[in-house]
């Protein structure tokens, strides 16, 4: 479980996160939603330590991240997997080398063991026969899946996904959503997904946090979001004709 306590962050005097307190449950897909510029990416980056919060703490299963030593922070980071918006695969490495990278860095596995693990996770994300291709030679959806494979290669306790569906067609987006949801259940991870895709919200949103102008505006789940009378949330979620009709 990840607890976020009183996180605030400003850039050049402009406050982008205001005293955010929430928790992300283990074994669930926890969604952070909000409009572009609402502060959800900053919140996620504060959680994984890519941005230092001005105030507040992020607690990973009882460990306050900001109070850990540099070495302890690095060990905790090895328990995290992250799916970046663009995949962030290493351009000069093949698919196989990308997925093997964390295994090379942090395990003492033999090459055959690493290869087995790579094949297992690639198979798990439904990628076959692309081991020796470079990221520039595969599609956007495949890049996302390889990035998920790399993120789960070390069996992480925490999985962070920054807009996993951006730039994907609706069908591939659904495949990625389902994959993340299944992997979360299968590996018992605490998964945090940053999205503004309403299909994801309604499909895999086990817990949902709505950020509005840097403030935590609403918390609930996908059932609650259909019944809420929160004006800003309704305005955001049901902004299209299609979602209004669905409601």
């Amino acid at each position, binding site marked *: 479980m990840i607890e976020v306590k009183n996180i605030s962050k400003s850039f050049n005097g402009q406050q982008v996160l205001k005293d955010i307190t929430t928790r992300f449950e283990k074994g669930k897909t926890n969604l952070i939603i909000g409009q572009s510029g609402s502060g959800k990416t900053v919140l996620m980056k504060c959680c*994984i*330590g*890519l941005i230092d919060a001005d105030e507040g703490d992020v607690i990973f299963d009882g460990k306050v991240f900001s109070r850990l030593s540099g070495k302890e*922070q*690095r*060990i*905790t*980071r*090895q328990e*995290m997997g*992250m799916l*970046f*918006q*663009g995949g*962030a*695969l*290493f*351009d*000069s490495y093949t698919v196989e080398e990308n997925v093997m*990278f*964390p295994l*090379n*860095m*942090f395990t003492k596995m033999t090459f055959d063991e690493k290869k087995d693990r790579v094949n297992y996770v690639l198979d798990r994300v439904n990628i076959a026969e692309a081991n020796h291709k470079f990221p520039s030679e595969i599609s956007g959806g495949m890049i996302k899946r390889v990035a998920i494979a790399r993120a789960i290669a070390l069996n992480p306790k925490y999985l*962070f996904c920054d807009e996993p569906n951006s730039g994907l067609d609706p069908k591939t987006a659904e495949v990625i959503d389902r994959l993340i949801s299944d992997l979360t259940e299968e590996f018992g991870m605490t998964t945090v997904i940053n999205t503004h895709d309403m299909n994801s919200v309604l499909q895999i949103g086990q817990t949902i946090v709505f950020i509005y102008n840097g403030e935590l505006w609403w918390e609930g789940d996908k059932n609650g979001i259909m019944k809420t009378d929160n004006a800003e949330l309704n305005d955001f979620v049901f902004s299209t004709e299609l979602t209004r009709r669905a409601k």
Partner: protein
Amino acid sequence: MKFLYQVGDYIMIMFQAFKRPDKGKVFRRQLFIDFQNMGATSIGVVTIISVFFGAIIAIQTAENIDNPMIPLTTIGFSVRQMMILEFGPTIISLILVGKVGSSIASEIGTMRVSEQIDALKVMGINPANYLILPKITAAMLYNPVLITFSIILGILGGWAASVFTGIVTTTIYIEGLRAWYDPFTITYAFAKTEVFAFIIASVSGYKGYTVKGGSVEVGQASTSAVVTCTILIVVFDLILTQMMLM
């Protein structure tokens, strides 16, 4: 103020870079890749430029010796001194700034803007150490080899131009090469080479590592790396010359 901030930031990133690598095997692999990318691919340009410059120095020296009191051995002597003292270490380093420095800055800069550096950090890897240290090590190990190669080829180029155009015979050229030789000039050349190699790899790495924005900023970082390295090389050339030769 911005300059001071950048100096402080550079020093802090170098502290991060000069930590013990997470895994020796991975470090050696990166080092090998950087040897190939930075060193081996530079041999061609170094060969061409060195041979031609050696030849040009020989012909220009011969052209300017119109006083019969000046011996023809001056040609070999001038080529040797020019190649060891300045051309090999400084001019080749300046050429490597354009080739290797810009490549380092754009490679690391692209990794920054495409979140690959963030990915390394989230994995618990020290990105500065993983990306910059192998490049500095590769440059400091490989540049002396390139400079030695350049000096030898420049002297051969000077010999070829002198002999084939009939300016001097091989015997006179070699006599000039051996005249008033001071072995300390070699120490001086390699000391400069090591300092310049460090500047090229570390400053370019820093410029790439601190890119913010997109492809335009990566291009600007690459240009900035070349300009900064060039200025630093000529400044340190003067300082080292004053310290070691005067």
